[in-house]
């Protein structure tokens, strides 16, 4: 644990130092990677630590993002208010969806979370009076925090860096807590944990809701980052891309999901510069990861060390 914390602190320091000297475009991508990384880590909480592969994670992300977009453009609500309400609404959505999804396991869980995710997409797409439908909501202003304006790229990058670090520490503490160990036990064998007297359902449910809360947090940051929220942020492809980031980085490692997110964000943006065939390449990445690196980057590194 000590070594890992040191490594993480070093990585943070490097990012913090590099931030101001980077050109604008890579800095934007780095900011984007941090935000999407929070989303990927929140999914890892479910997939890697609890064995629940959610296919609808964009829903909570989207709820957070739409909450910010609507509150800032219609009511001029400040950063703290937006964060609290955005995360609360995402948590609430996860609390409702969790009641339905946790009843199922394995493939059923995948299908149900997919369909529930589509409910949110459907609302974003069709509830035009609230969400402006397909046009999306544009003009989300960058926030102000305690008098500090986070409008330009560098302050906003620091804001996201701190947010990602806080999210990572909180989730890291969660997975090493007795509760987190219980989750890992459930991932290993649900019936064994049941026999040992653990409340399996409650463990899974709480993990599901907390994961939704962190996804919602990422969503609120996304709305500020992008300045624009549309049904695309909630669609199935977003959920699925998050799943790929976790699988690519290595499920059950948290920081691996962050790496996976960074890799996909940079790959996506650099490839799109050279070719329009980004989807073709992304599809190839999916298949390649499954065939050649089933344990992800971090998993492969650990395997080598042994």
């Amino acid at each position, binding site marked *: 644990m000590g070594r890992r914390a040191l490594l993480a602190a070093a990585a943070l320091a490097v990012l913090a130092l590099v931030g101001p000297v980077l050109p604008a475009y890579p800095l934007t991508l780095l900011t984007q990677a941090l935000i999407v990384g929070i989303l990927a880590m929140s999914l890892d909480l479910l997939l890697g630590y609890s064995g629940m592969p959610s296919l609808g994670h964009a829903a909570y992300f989207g709820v957070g993002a739409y909450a910010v977009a609507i509150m800032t453009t219609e009511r001029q609500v400040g950063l703290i208010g937006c964060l609290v309400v955005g995360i609360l609404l995402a948590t609430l959505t996860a609390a409702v969806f969790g009641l339905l999804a946790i009843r199922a396991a*394995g493939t059923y869980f995948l299908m149900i979370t997919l369909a529930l995710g589509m409910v949110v997409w*459907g609302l974003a797409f069709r509830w035009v009076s609230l969400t402006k439908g397909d046009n999306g909501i544009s003009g989300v202003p960058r926030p102000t925090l305690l008098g500090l304006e986070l409008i330009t790229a560098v302050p906003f990058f620091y804001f996201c860096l701190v947010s990602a670090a806080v999210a990572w520490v909180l989730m890291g503490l969660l997975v090493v807590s007795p509760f987190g160990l219980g989750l890992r036990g459930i991932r290993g064998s649900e019936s064994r944990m049941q026999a040992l007297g653990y409340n399996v359902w409650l463990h899974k449910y709480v993990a599901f809701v907390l994961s939704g809360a962190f996804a919602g947090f990422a969503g609120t940051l996304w709305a500020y980052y992008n300045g624009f929220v549309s049904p695309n942020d909630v669609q199935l492809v977003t959920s699925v891309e998050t799943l790929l980031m976790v699988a690519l980085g290595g499920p059950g490692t948290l920081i691996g999901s962050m790496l996976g997110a960074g890799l996909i964000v940079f790959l996506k943006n650099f490839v799109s510069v050279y070719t329009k065939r980004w989807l073709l390449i992304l599809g190839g990445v999916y298949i390649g990861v499954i065939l050649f690196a089933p344990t992800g980057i971090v998993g492969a590194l650990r395997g080598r060390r042994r």
Partner: protein
Amino acid sequence: MRTEFWIAQAFNGISYGALLFLLASGLSLIFGVMRIVNLAHGSYFMLGGYVGLSVALYTKSYTLALLAGAVAIGLVGIGMERLFLRRLRGEVLGQVLMTIGFALIFQDLALLIWGGDPYTVPIPKMLSGTVRFGGAAFPIYRIFIVAVAFVVGLALWLALDRTRAGAMIRAAVDDAEMAGGVGINVPRVSLAVFALGAALAALGGVIGGGFLGVYPGADFEVLPYAFVVVIVGGLGSLPGAVAGSLLVGLLDNFGKALFPELSYFTLFAPMAIILAIRPTGLFGRV
């Protein structure tokens, strides 16, 4: 006027349900036998539509378009199952990611080959126009869809219930390991079911292309519908697919007509209620 609205909407819902049945019955069978969540199933629908479109434009034959779409996409399914998915038996997440990878590749290839414009598969004169019945007008093409779904459903039921191959499939759905134990070649059954499912989805794509059109994004648009049908009806169940398709078709149509802003909600909320009461769907076993 009022009753005409209800009759017309109900008929539209049933005919849309018939189309969904073509798409979802295969997905349900594939799931039943192989436990694969196939996210490329919507792609078969879209690709089938595109292949059908090209064949229909080239040969001027609607029948050939139906056949070519189903056969071509059935072969695509065979390739996917035999070369890729079979390596990942039992790995739920790996299979899902792989089918997503294929779905993205198919989407981009379709865009590359057929471009981004929407098309409509040309339908024969015989199937266009409407018939009037008791003061309401019914499009002949939609009656045709219901008839095709009925024939396909009947054929599937007879095949599953009355033939040796059907008995093998049912055995594999119930317990693949035991089926293998009594000498059934489960990998071959899986391959056949996968190909059949892909071909049915493609058939649905060609037929759907006649009134919904074929366009980029159709794949991920129909996919959730197919999933809801399968979830509501119960995985691996043919009667479930029939009931689920009709329910989803009707809910979708009335939802769009009565509450346009909440139309997806009116589709998914009943699904949630059914799941809360019966987690395995209406006809599903554990």
